[in-house]
């Protein structure tokens, strides 16, 4: 990536990684919860960042893979969402109501073993997994500044940086970024954390996008504003 050419110096790299990972409240809440998880997330952010600099590097890929496995293990062992395969009272009432609608409208398509299994069980489980999966893709969850909501992981100032970084990253995508993205979402689909920590597996990617957005913005300012002749 051309815009990284000036940032190949170690000091710049360290500064950007520190900026991306530590300039938010979220990481400190994660450290408070589990220091090891916080460390792993910072390591993953750094590795993802290095991967954007050095496109092909087996060592980085292996390290990233190992850290992701470790993080998944910790989260799945300690925070596996036990509610995925069982129905709450409200869900049970809803299922009972819907049974009548399905029976009336679908008749034999519903009234058989496969139909009942699909509509009464599978749809619910699939819905819960999808809910967890997509909950990590809520931009407002990371930036919400609504006064009555206790979350808002990053300052709203970072939102434009995230968008710029994300768009920039999309144009120069490394296959490991894609793998990491879907792996993180998949892990998130099966774990349940409280609202302060929810979707923490996305921390490295979001921090990476903010870092790239920051660099890209500096470049835009430098090229379009500072370089203009007065």
């Amino acid at each position: 990536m051309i815009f990284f050419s000036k940032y190949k110096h170690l000091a710049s790299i360290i500064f950007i990684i520190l900026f991306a990972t530590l300039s938010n409240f979220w990481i400190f809440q994660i450290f408070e919860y589990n220091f090891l998880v916080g460390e792993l997330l910072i390591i993953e952010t750094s590795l993802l960042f290095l991967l954007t600099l050095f496109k092909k590097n087996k060592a980085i890929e292996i390290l990233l893979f190992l850290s992701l496995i470790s993080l998944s293990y910790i989260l799945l062992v300690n925070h596996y969402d036990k509610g995925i395969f069982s129905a709450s009272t409200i869900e049970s009432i809803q299922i009972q109501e819907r049974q009548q609608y399905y029976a009336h409208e679908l008749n034999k398509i519903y009234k058989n073993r496969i139909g009942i299994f699909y509509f009464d069980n599978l749809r619910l489980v699939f819905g819960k997994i999808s809910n967890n999966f997509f909950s990590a893709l809520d931009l407002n969850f990371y930036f919400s500044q609504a006064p009555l909501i206790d979350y808002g992981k990053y300052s709203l100032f970072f939102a434009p940086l995230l968008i710029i970084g994300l768009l920039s990253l999309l144009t120069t995508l490394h296959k490991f970024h894609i793998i990491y993205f879907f792996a993180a979402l998949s892990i998130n689909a099966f774990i349940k954390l409280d609202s302060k920590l929810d979707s923490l597996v996305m921390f490295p990617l979001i921090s990476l996008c903010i870092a790239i957005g920051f660099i890209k913005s500096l470049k835009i300012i430098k090229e379009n504003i500072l370089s203009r002749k007065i």
Partner: protein
Amino acid sequence: MNKLLQVSSVILILIIAFCLRFYNLNSIPAGLHADGASQGYNAFSLLNTSLDRYGQSLPILFRAFGYYQPPLYTYLTIIPVAFFGNSPYSARFISALSGLILIIVTYLLVLILLNKKRGRFLLAGISALTVAIAPWAIFFSRLTVEANLGLLLLVSSLLLFVYSLQKIRFLPIAGFVLGISTHAYYSERLISVIFLPLFILIFKSYFLKFKKWVVFALLLFFITQIPHLVILKSGAFAQRFNQVSSFNHTSGIYPQITGISKIILNNYLIYYSPKNLFFDSDSSLGRTMPGLSVFYNWLLIPFLTGIWWLLKNKSHQFAKVILLLIVLTPLPAAFTDDFFYPLRTLDFLWTLSIVIAVGLLQLYNLIKFNPLKIFLSGSFLLYSLFSLYISYFILFKYEKAESYGYAYIKLMDKLSKYSDKQIVIDSARDSGIGVRLAYLNNYPPREIQNELSPQIKTPYYSGVINTDEVYSINNLTIKPLSFADACQENMIMVGDILSISPKQAEEHKLKLEFEVYDLSGKIALFGYSTHPKSTCPIKSKL
């Protein structure tokens, strides 16, 4: 792609789209929403008297329950009302038809935007299919919403603008259609005034060669805005915006400028959140259906692929126009206070459908083995249609019947037995009951005009609109219920559990005459007869 295949693909897509939009349109959604009833009755009134239900001649905006409805939809609804009579079908017809025509316009627009590029027919077909089966498109096409007509006009003007890059004489028509779209829905007012100069700016090197045509187009656009200028100072023009705008938060906990900026940025982000676009199902009105969001969740991958392709090809005319729309179209909704309100962003959702179509094409081209292409495309299409059928044609129909006033339509059957009694129906929580019953009963517009015009407390075009209207339709009186009515002889009081609780019924010696069930099987309305002789002593205690 040979011509026969192209034409048959488009016809097949249109048949699918037609079925999804017009199948059981009269009964799904079950009932008729207050806004739809208002538009339907105004159309009926205009057809018969050339006046709206308040007796206003050819309104620029239609006064309704505490706000104004943009006029174009109501004027066009005169045609289905004249042909099919007063029914939910007639009220929804223009929206469904707009949704259908939108598919043809989308197909043509993509063809013209890609101008001689390879694969343009395939992309145009995929775009048309994406719009044809998109949950948002079907959901809003089956509701009486002006936004769908607004979207059609905006996309049509876009088609003309893009075509004007090849034949400049289409530019003035494009300006005119864009101007007309501002009379169809509120979002188009903001989008059009930003879009028009930006489009000219993006292609300035071309338009500079045709300055006269540009001026002519701007002039035509301006002419279409004259009705808005007429009512600009009345308070009616900005009344809806004042109701829903984020700028209402200018005091209290929000410091003025930073507070508003944060709200707008927050709201803007809401519309880009994949969670809201591909997963969150929220069956409240103006949003989506149970179990489905505005797009099928598997479309997340084509969406990201489409964005990636557009960024890679951002210098291309197609990418420029789509990227401009992606940035621009969520703006009107970002300025309002509601959380993720798709109704206000149909233009944005349409744009995203094109992005998804681009992504689908890229993924389709990745697969080299033709039978696998057909198998995967067919599987995803069937899965999508199956999800849609379950969510919309079953769950939405039953679970949302209450929001569309289904019980009040069923009530009419019950009330036919009580033609010798005075009936009071509570309208405290739904100000659309009166106009809904007037519309579905073909109640003469002159009678309604005579009743409603004296009840207007402010000028017809005003920033303040009273909502406490009382409707009298034959032996029905529709008004907020008062237990003083329990002292009237020969009367039936109708309301839901919040209007008349069992305890209140007992207290006022009301006798249960009938119950009206909702489509879900729950009791929605109760009808009680009054017994003033035993009730009136209690009256003094109230």
